[in-house]
């Protein structure tokens, strides 16, 4: 699934389209960046309610190229700049982390481990 298809499932807004060729197969939902850093994250969408510059840094380090911000959290200009530099797609959604996760799961995305 590409970023456009992901966005349709969660009725979000794409703020920035980073790496358009990426096909996402997995999703990981967490507000704890320490946990994000523990797993293999290639082809994985990060869904989070945490909205800080360190979410972008965590994505950059873990090779994550798409982040969905839940619960109507607004991305700041410094976050946007860092995402641009590292070609990371940013999506904002008013839905809760739970509902976004549910829709993505139903849409066919897998967890990072079982």
């Amino acid at each position, binding site marked *: 699934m590409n970023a456009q298809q992901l966005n349709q499932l969660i009725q979000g807004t794409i703020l920035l389209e980073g790496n358009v060729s990426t096909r996402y197969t997995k999703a990981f939902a967490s507000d704890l960046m*320490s946990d994000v*850093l*523990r797993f293999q994250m290639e082809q994985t969408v990060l869904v989070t309610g945490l909205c800080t*510059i*360190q979410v972008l840094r*965590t994505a*950059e380090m*873990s090779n994550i190229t798409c982040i969905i911000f839940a619960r109507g959290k607004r991305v700041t200009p410094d976050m946007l700049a860092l995402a641009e530099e590292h070609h990371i797609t940013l999506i904002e959604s008013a839905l809760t982390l739970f509902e976004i996760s549910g829709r993505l799961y139903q849409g066919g995305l897998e967890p990072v481990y079982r």
Partner: protein
Amino acid sequence: MKFCYEIKGGDFSAGGSASSQVKKTLKQFNIAPQVLRRIAVALYEAEMNVVAHAWRGSMCVDINIDHLNVVIEDEGPGIEDIERAMEEGFSTATEEVRQMGFGAGMGLPNIRKNSDEMKLTSTPGIGTRLALTIRF
């Protein structure tokens, strides 16, 4: 090839910029993406430890043909009990650090997981030194 970066304690907005620079440099070499991620994650966790706990520090990276040596040193409160600090879930992080999505006591165990060799030494009241080796 050797270079060093300064790390400022308490500066959460700049936290990660040293690790970012190293990742950018290493991208020029023919290193597998998974290895690059292991390196970046280990360095970022170590850098965030300095930002979260110390007053100031440095990250020195030595790139060799088949491995990377990194030394992260800081001036800070140090670690009283290293064995305990290495336990998953143990943390002395402040509320501010936790609000940034860190301080869950996963950092040091994750650094150990992502590196091939890890040596952590500390003098309470003086500072901490972390030496890592990661093979390509």
